[in-house]
């Protein structure tokens, strides 16, 4: 694949293949941190990304949770946005049209309160040529019905995956929750139900309190923890899942730079997603791409895909 970046001087082949999807590099955006990319276009050359993963899309508009929705914590942040989005029709008429004019694969994150909700979103998106793959959100901790409820036991996780498998031939990535006893069981269940890849981890359920006011910092009291604070947990889970399933693993959790991305690849990830880092520095994804290329050059790595699972134990 033609190297788009003028800044990447390494001769390394950064391209990867995920579930039949050829990406120019393994760096994707994490759902919910990048909207649909339009807001970042002033800071990021989208054509230098492996893929854009959109904010979660539900069948109808969701208004999300009350404010405050965000709280900073040591080495990270909590959010309880609650998957606010305008619904699949508005998404198709708005952000998806804009994304269609960009030179980047589009992975649509799909959410719902029920299996039927997920199916409705994917069926609608099947009519849209600009969708490269789906990421199935069965792991959001910030909604009452659906979301994480599907992702914390094997049967519902498998049921959502199987239902979507029956309505699409496009690559199906299932995003897993870390809020489980054994993430490898869930990974195996969705693999068995037809998932083409898994992405992990979504946020860890957490909480923050203001001692002065004795109030929770989030209106919803609990929320999802992200950022560098969760990277060791995410790395461990990627390592475990990569050994447990045959499908590609996409690593996400606290990636701030190229070195962090390399760690996830070594642990077994075939690609990575950058999330909270976008808030600190809107150019974070570009720095991760450049950092990966620089690492490959420095270590004589010819193909970035050779790093996947190359941990020396």
């Amino acid at each position, binding site marked *: 694949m033609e190297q788009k970046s003028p800044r990447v001087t390494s001769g390394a082949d950064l391209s990867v293949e995920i579930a039949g999807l050829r990406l120019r590099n393994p760096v994707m955006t994490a759902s919910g941190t990048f909207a649909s990319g339009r807001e970042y276009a002033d800071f990021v050359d989208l054509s230098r990304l492996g893929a854009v993963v959109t904010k979660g899309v539900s069948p109808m508009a969701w*208004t999300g949770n009350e*404010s405050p*929705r965000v709280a*900073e914590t040591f080495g*990270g942040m909590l959010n309880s*946005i609650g998957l606010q989005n305008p619904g699949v029709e508005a998404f198709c008429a708005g952000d998806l049209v804009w994304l269609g004019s960009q030179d980047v694969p589009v992975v649509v994150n799909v959410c719902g309160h029920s299996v039927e909700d997920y199916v409705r979103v994917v069926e609608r998106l099947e009519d849209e040529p600009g969708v490269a793959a789906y990421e199935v959100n069965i792991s959001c901790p910030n909604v009452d019905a659906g979301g994480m409820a599907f992702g914390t036991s094997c049967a519902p996780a498998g049921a959502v995956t199987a239902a979507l498998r029956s309505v699409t031939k496009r690559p199906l990535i299932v995003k897993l929750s870390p809020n489980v006893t054994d993430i490898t069981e869930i990974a195996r269940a969705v693999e068995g139900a037809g998932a083409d890849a898994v992405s992990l981890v979504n946020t860890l359920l957490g909480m923050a309190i*203001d001692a002065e006011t004795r109030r929770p910092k989030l209106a919803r009291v609990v929320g999802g923890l992200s950022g560098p604070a969760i990277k060791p947990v995410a790395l461990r889970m990627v390592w475990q899942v990569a050994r447990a399933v045959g499908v590609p693993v996409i690593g996400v959790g606290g990636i701030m730079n190229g070195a962090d991305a390399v760690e996830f690849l070594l642990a077994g990830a075939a690609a990575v997603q950058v999330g909270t880092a976008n808030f600190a520095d*809107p150019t974070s994804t570009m720095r991760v791409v450049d950092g990966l290329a620089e690492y490959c050059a420095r270590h004589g790595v010819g193909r970035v895909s050779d790093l996947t699972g190359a941990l020396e134990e």
Partner: protein
Amino acid sequence: MSCAALDAGPHPLLERVEVLANDRVAEGVGLIALHAPRIAAAVEPGQFVHLRIATGADFLLRRPFSVHRAGGETIEILYQVLGRGTLDLAGKTRGDVMDAIGPLGTGWDIPDGIAHILLVAGGLGAAPLGMLAERLSARGVAVSVAQGAPTSERLVARELFESVARRVEVATDDGSAGERGFVTVVSERLLQTDRPDLVCVCGPEIMARAVAAQAARAGVPCRVSLERLMACGIGACLSCVVTTSHGRKRACVDGPVFDAEEVCWDGAEVPPRH
């Protein structure tokens, strides 16, 4: 400052800014001057910058600050030390460098034809009104200011307002300057005596809400600048939403200035702690 100009306004910039001065102006309140030529050239009153104060991984998020004044290649920010971010900001000295995204947000968007405006500032709510007062006054608009604070020392930017406004009336909690009590006593009076065409208010949400109600009773349009906790500052993360009659809007890109009539105040939240 017309609507069209803002719609076609410049895209936000990521700029390395350098601290020129950082002075205490009152108990717990600082004024920092930053060399930020690109942002200074583009910023409109009411817009904000998103500052990356610390670059370590322990505390990651940027902090949004209204631009208090802008001139030449410099922007000034008034801040109150409330938490980790503003404490670090207070420790910055001349020559320190940060990165800033800006200018962000909609600004006050004052329509042409406004002859007389009332600005209502509560505490650090004076911050986004300083540049507005200066620019409106320069444009020949009569400016009245109602300003409130806990003490006379905390009437930040009072000198600026007095230098450009036709009238400045103040209220303090302790009576050390002007009326003893809330700024709403003063704003109510000025609404009656000065008959402004527009009210612009910034301060604690409970005060902004009260002033909006006064303006509504007087039949005067009112704009409010609202503060929310933010992560991205550029419209992506949906952390900073404000509940309005047109649904939930983002304070960072759809605001921070809103038409008071569209704000659903019952969604009011506890003041953000930086």
